[in-house]
Every structure is written in C-alpha cells, then in structure tokens.
C-alpha cells in the first residue's frame, strides 16, 4: 500500500469575494496519476495555484495536508522545497536573468533547506549537463534569459527541465498540452514519464484526453463548479469524449 501524499478536505477558496472552490475533496497517494478534467471556469487552475500558495487566493475553509504537514501554513517556497511542483500553463518570462543562474539558485535554495550540499557554478554545470542530455536540450538553452523569447514548446520543455532539477514528489501539470503540437505533446509526456522521481505523483489538469494516451491515469476526476462530481478511470474519459460534460453540470 502506498503512503498518502496529499489530502484535501472540504476546501473552500475565493478570489475577490468570489467562491471558486466549494467543498473540494481529493486524496493522492504516492505513485499515482490523477487527471482533473472539466469545463472552463470550473476551478481547475485555481486548484493548482492554491496548492502552491498563490497570494491572490483566500482560503475560507477546509484543510490541505501534504506529506503529513499542514500545507496552508507553509510559504510558497517551502512548499516547493517540500516537493510540490507546478508546471505553469503560461511560464513567466524574466528579463536579464539567465536560465542557468535561475536553475542554480533554485537548486541550491532547495539543497540549503534540506541541509544538503550546495553546488558551485562549475559543479552545477556538470549536474545540469546530465539533465540536458536526458531531455536532449542544447547547452545554449542555459545562457538565454529565463523563458524570454522562448517558443511555446521551449517554455514547456524548460518547465520539465526545472522539474528534473527540483525532483519533486508531487507534480501538477496545468494544461501542459496547451500550445503544443501532437508530436511535442508526446515527447513532453514521455520525458515526464521517464524522468519523474520514483514514487512521485502527478496531477494533470487538461481539457484534452489525448495526453492520457501517454500518461495513463490511476484516477480520472470530473470537476464542475468548484468540486469533483465524478471519479472513475479511463472509461470515464471515453464517456466524456462521446457525451461531453452536459450530464454532470
């Protein structure tokens, strides 16, 4: 039996006095893949931001536990250090900061938190080379400013590179397939599958079942109006394909 990694109970959250999550419940164990599907505005992306501690959302009620810790008490960077990773739907561009500097700082901050050895620039270069090799990314990727002028595909691959650097326990993929062509989706999914840490879990937020051909889910959840209304497996996905969300609304 795998250990419980994430437990969300009766979570209610709002932004600008508007309730987005309404008595939301979810349990994720180690080494599971959960898919959350649902129509636009059902609160899927909000969920990912609340889990990672975005300051704009207000928690009205409920609890979130992650690795037996009260997640809501942790700042976003501590949540990250503890192993929570969000691959952004729209990764943010940052001028003047090289990808290399950014990755090294992020890596060392986590090492520092875990009281492990930090890497100097040369050591980190060796470390990152191995990861670049795994993803078949060229070196020049490191010298470019963080996400600045990256194509949609490059931005998503950079998210995966960051995931490899931070080696998280729970990976949230917020519409990782948006803006990617079919071939790119396949490659990205293969890379995630191959390189994610042993026993790590995934929460996939998506509109399109296509991604599920590559990342086969343990559970499929349908989210409508701030809560999960139905949980199933791949058969549920097929059912949705044929009938849409109509009957769940």
């Amino acid at each position, binding site marked *: 039996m795998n250990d419980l990694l994430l437990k969300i109970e009766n979570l209610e959250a709002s932004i600008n006095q508007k309730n987005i999550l309404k008595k939301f419940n979810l349990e994720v164990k180690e080494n599971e893949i959960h898919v959350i599907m649902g129509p636009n505005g059902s609160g899927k992306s909000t969920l990912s*931001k609340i889990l*990672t*501690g*975005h*300051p*704009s*959302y*207000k928690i009205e009620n409920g609890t979130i536990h992650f690795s037996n810790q009260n997640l809501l008490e942790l*700042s*976003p*960077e501590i*949540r*990250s*250090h503890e192993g929570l*990773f*969000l691959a*952004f739907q729209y*990764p*943010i561009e*940052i*001028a*003047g*900061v090289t990808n290399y*500097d*950014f990755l090294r*700082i*992020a890596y060392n*901050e*986590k090492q520092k*938190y875990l009281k492990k050895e930090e890497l100097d*620039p040369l050591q980190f270069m060796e470390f990152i080379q191995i990861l670049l090799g795994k993803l078949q990314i060229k070196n020049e990727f490191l010298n470019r*400013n963080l996400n600045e002028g990256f194509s949609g595909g490059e931005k998503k691959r950079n998210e995966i590179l*960051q995931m490899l650097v*931070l080696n998280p326990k729970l990976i949230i993929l917020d519409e990782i397939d948006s803006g990617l062509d079919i071939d790119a989706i396949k490659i990205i999914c293969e890379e995630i599958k191959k390189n994610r840490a042993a026993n790590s879990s995934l929460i996939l937020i998506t509109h399109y079942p296509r991604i599920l051909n590559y990342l086969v889910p343990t559970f499929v959840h349908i989210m409508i109006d701030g809560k999960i209304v139905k949980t199933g497996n791949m058969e549920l996905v097929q059912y949705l394909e044929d009938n849409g969300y109509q009957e769940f609304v």
Partner: protein
Amino acid sequence: MNETKKKTNFEINQVINEPYKYGFETKIEKEHFPIGLSEQIIELISNKKNEPDFLRKFRLNAFKKWLKLKAPEWANLSINPINYNEITYYSIPKQKKKLNSLEEVDPEILKTFEKLGISLEEQKKLSNVAIDAVFDSVSIGTTYKEKLGKSGVIFCSISEAIKSYPKLVKKFLGTVISSGDNFYAALNSAVFSDGSFCYIPKNIECPLELSTYFRINDKDAGQFERTLIIAEKNSSINYLEGCTAPQFSQNQLHAAIVELIAFENAKIKYSTVQNWYSGNEEGIGGIYNFVTKRGLCLGKNSIISWTQVETGSSITWKYPSCILLGKNSTGEFYSIALTNNYQQADTGTKMLHLGEKTKSKIISKGISCGFSTNSYRGLVKIGLNAAYSRNFSQCDSFLIGSASAACTYPYLDIWNSTAIIEHEAKISKISEEQLFYLTQRGINVEKAIGLLINGFCKDVVTMLPMEFATEADKLLSLKLEGTVG
C-alpha cells in the same frame, strides 16, 4: 486585500529597507573653520592650504559668480531651503605635523576605512587598485604612489597636485566646468577642499585601476571635493569612486565637481558607486548630493565613459556629461539609480556632439521603491558641425510598490540633419506573477526581488570594472538582497 497578499508586500518592504551599514561616526579631534561663507573664509581656506595666488583668485572669482547665481529649480526635486551660512566649509581631522606615510595617519581614521571594507595598507591589499581616501575635507592617503610613479602616472590628492604640479593644475582646472557653470559648481569652485588628481602621460595605459573613496564624517561640514583627470594622447585609465557618510538627522551638503579631459585616442572610464546616507524611512536626514561631472573628448577618437550606481543620498542632482569635440569621439553613460523611502533623484546625462562622426550611448535604469521619486533627465545635442553623428538612448524604469514615481525627461536638440538618433524607453512594475513563479521554484520573495532587479540592471552592471562590480553588488544588495553569482 487578503492576509497573504499583505504579507507579501510587507516582505518586499523588509527587503528594500535593509538598514544603512555605514552610518557610524568616527570620534576624532577635528579642526573646524567658523561656519558661513564669505571672502574671508575663502581666504582662510586658501591660506590654510598654502595655495598659490592663481588658485586664491580662482576661488574668489567663483565666489563672486556664486553670489549672483541662483540654485536651479528646474529639476523634479523638492528641496528644503539650504542656509549656506550655517555650514562649515572646512573640516579636517586634527593632526600635529605633516603626514609622510600612512603609518602616521590617525588609527581611528584608518579603522574607519577598514570598517568600510577599504584597506589602505598596501601589503594587505590583493586587488589591483590604487586608492586615494578622502575624509571630510582632506585626502588621508594615497596608495601605490611609487608603483604608479614608475610609469609616469600622477595620482594624488588635488591639494598635493596644487603644490607639486601647479602648472598642470593651472592649465586644466576649470576648463571643462567653468567656475560659474552653475550654482553648485560655483560654490564648489570657491570652497573645494580636496579630491583626487590623475594625470596619465602619453602612450601610457595606467597599470592599476585608480580609486577614490570619499567619506563625510563631520555633522555640520559640507563636503566639496573636486576631481581632475587628464588622459594624454594614446593613454587610458579606469577610475573608480565610492562614497559613504554617517547617519545624522540633519541634512548634509555635498557639492562636488569632476572634470575629465581626454586627448587623441585616449580613453577614460569613470565608475561611481554612490552610497551616501539617504535619510531614514521617514525621509529625515541624508545627504544633499549636487554634483557636476563633465568630460571633454578633446582629441579625435577619444572615449569617455561614465558608469554610475546611485543608491544613496536623500537628494541626487547629477548629470555626468560628455562634450564630444574631437572627430569620431565617443561618449557613454551607463546608470543605475535606486531610490527608496523619501529619496529623490534627478539624474541623467548630457551628450553634446560638436565634432564630426561623434557617437554617444546612454543606458539608464531607474528603480523606485517606497515614496521615492526617480527621474531621468537627459539632453542629446547635435551641433551644426557634428555631421554623421549618432546617439542611442535607452531609459528604463522599474517601480516597486504603488507609492513611488518614475519620470523620464529626454531632450533632443538636433542641428544637423545627417544625425541618427534612437531612443527607447520602458517602464515596468514588479509583477505578482513573476514573484509567484520564482517562489514556486523555491526562491523566497527577498531573493526573487533581488533577482528581478539584478536582471533589470544587468546591462549596466556588466559595464562596471571587475574590481568594482563586487563592491557595487555589495552596496546594491544592502538594499536588495539576492544578487546573482
């Protein structure tokens, strides 16, 4: 507003409100002049320093001009009235005899510079920089004099230059910035106390970077230093300047002049990290920094490059400029100005293209936090004879918080139609989404802001000489933790 959001803003405030670490006062015996300004005071200064007649006349002449001038009011600054008769115009650490070497310097003063991270003891120094240290009104000591002397480079305090090289001083002093140039320049010309003098002879590439470190210590004294740098044909020099002051609740006046002269093919690179005390979080105290800096590209192909990192002072009024007279000469201005709390900065440059095919480049980065105002003011003038001249200007502003202000005043004055002028400007605000992205990757808010600011300033920081970049980094990170590398 929810709780978490408030917390984020609070954290931002903590980061940019790092306390001023150089605010201590050194207790030493000082020799004071009576307060106030008059011909008698100027005579007294001149006599005290045993100055030659030409300099006494220069001072008195400047004083006469100053009496007729008014403080400029066009800058985007609100300045409390300054009573020039309540200021001490000359203050020196008391010493019994003439100093022959650094060993004779008051150990308290040496300790002050040690505390500031500046070692004046050559054997302890690792970096390749010669330093002139100016404490209140006088130069305390200059390092590496002998080593420089071998290549013919003169690097000493301006008082010493007046004594030892009066002909050179007489020939060049006040030729780039005349004694009546503006209100503050006239004041400086009348009462300047000390500063640095550099002379790089023909065909010499100065073997060391030269550096002056200015320290205001005295509460009631103004600091009026004056720097003169002359680079002869085919010579080059890298010059660095740093400034700090103790924390006092009253404002202190600093009105400096820097004159640079570059002959044919000469190159002068002048870098400043200005970290005078900026006043407290309510805007009380701090240095009034009124500085006139100007370089003259006299010979063809000469280059003058200004780089400044301005983080201190309660008021900054400063426009390091270039007169591009020599054919094909180049002027550059790279600036970072960071203001916080109630600091006000009105800074920029003037590029005066007079010769043919002259080029200039301006990159200005302004960062405003708290309730501060940060203005860029720049003039690009292309004269009638400056055919085929070029200018590129880029002025970027970065706002942190919602109470700070950034303004840009670019002036163009073009008299020759063959000129090519480019101007870029952008203004950005620190975005919550950027901060969230970085914190999600495990970088705390403090470090994240540092990283964003660092990225914003990168174009300019890379222009600083290696030896200085670290120091600049240190000073910048006093207010903004988390520098890269």
